[in-house]
């Protein structure tokens, strides 16, 4: 990425758009999405950080040298959507998106560091990258525990058309 691209990516409004994300080489291809869960890395700047690369036992993510390189999903076929990179990312910038969940539904695994944790099976309000309410979702899975060290992994079931849009959720009592 050139210096100018970086400047363009430097956010003025506080959020990144799907267009911004698709401009840089990392967003998985639609063919890959069709085959099941895959890591979506939303980290656009050259910052000194590479735990995502070391977290991936399948060598699907590359930062390389220097560690200020942007992380890239270099081998989208190797990624099985395990979510280890989500737990290790200090920027909470990685999601696992499964657009092959069913005909109409997709799932998104998100890092979540708020308490209380959502209840499995509960309905939540799903938010986009700006925090706007987009749709309802259902909590499918709540992974917490020692190995995750308080970066909990929450799987949310949502309508498929919002798979590239939804990146957070609100527990309904708090709305």
């Amino acid at each position, binding site marked *: 990425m050139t*210096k100018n691209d*970086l400047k363009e*990516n*430097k*956010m*003025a*409004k*506080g*959020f*990144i758009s799907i267009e911004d994300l698709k401009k840089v080489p990392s967003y998985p291809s639609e063919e890959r999405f069709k085959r099941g869960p895959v890591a979506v890395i*939303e*980290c*656009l*700047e*050259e*910052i*000194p*950080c*590479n*735990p995502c690369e*070391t*977290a991936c036992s399948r060598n699907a993510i590359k930062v390389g040298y*220097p*560690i*200020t390189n942007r992380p890239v999903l270099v081998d989208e076929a190797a990624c099985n959507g395990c979510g280890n990179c989500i737990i*290790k*990312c*200090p*920027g*909470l*910038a990685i999601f696992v998106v499964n657009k092959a969940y069913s005909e109409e539904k997709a799932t998104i695994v998100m890092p979540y*560091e*708020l*308490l209380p944790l959502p209840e499995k099976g509960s309905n939540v309000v799903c*938010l*986009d*990258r*700006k*925090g*706007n309410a987009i749709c309802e979702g259902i909590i499918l899975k709540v992974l917490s525990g020692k190995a995750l*060290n*308080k*970066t909990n992994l929450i799987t949310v079931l949502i309508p498929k058309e919002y798979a590239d849009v939804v*990146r*957070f959720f609100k527990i309904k009592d708090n709305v």
Partner: protein
Amino acid sequence: MERENKLKTEFAVIGGGPAGLCAAIEAAKYGVEVTIIDENLKPGGQLFKQIHRFFGSEEHLAGVRGFEIGNILISDAQKYGVKVLLNNIAWGLFEDNNIGLCDTNKVSILSCKKVLVATGAIENSIAFPGWTLPNIMGAGAAQTMINVNRVLPGRKVVTVGSGNVGLIVSYQLMQAGAQVECIIEGLPEIGGYQVHASKITRMGVPILTRHTIIKAEGEKFVQKVIISQVDDNWKIIAGTEREINCDLVCIAVGLKPLIELCRMAGMKFEYLAELGGFIPVHNENMQTTIDGAYIAGDITGVEEASTAMEEGKIAGLAVAMELGKIDEKKGESELASAKNRLRALRMGPYGEFRHQAKQNLINSYYKYKNQMGA
């Protein structure tokens, strides 16, 4: 007040934050007798309020939370026999590196062969009508209250400044149960990392660029602020003023190095705005223009805990080498790896300018040394 007879140590470290602890551990590892002086009740500096995972690579302990790094460093310091003088304020740095200390009931002088000043930095503030109202505080103060003392100072927050401190503290206030109404930023773009901005934006917190705070109002504490848009020259755009109800205002407008002891010792300084203000010039091994006196961490330019730790290690190694405790070849190779790790943290659009600024400090050091030698 009592006066104690002169205390002695081989290597005195003023400030037990990440830089001081790493320097102490590194020197003690090779047999240097080390004493850390810290004014707090516990060493660790700012690490214990940093509940987020650190950036960097594995060798910088990336992915580990700040307070966990604090615990690792304290246990390493114990393992290598580092002495820690807590609740002690270093109030003077005199000739021959004699350090003036005081605790609650006595004043003493600590003499040493080598000293490291690792006093860190202090938060900047901005003045506006009403800024002295209670609950208008530095973002670092709010972070200490929630993460160390577990007290939530307010429930409706306005943060001023969108650098990493403003973004991270706002996120942590949300974690602590507060609602952040907005983050305001005078510049046209967000100052901190995109990933920090993204994680708070998706929670619904607006980041208002080209905005400033005009005044704060309240009876006994802050109850609302008036903000407005600003133009390219930071002039308020009339008609854009609006009120935001809040009960906490966090000011996150940068930090400046705490250099009083270095001034007192007569070190040579440079002014580098990009590093936070006046900085003592130093060489690549963190040696200042005063013999036997070193600096490391935010006092050498405001950066991150990860850079502070590497600088501390460099200073600790240099001290161990100067004192003849470490084989020169081994010392040089350890120094080289620490410098490589430090370089890796100062690359990219957020790091390269800091690397350049630090090079300028090193050049100034040699220029000054040459002048003195001539």
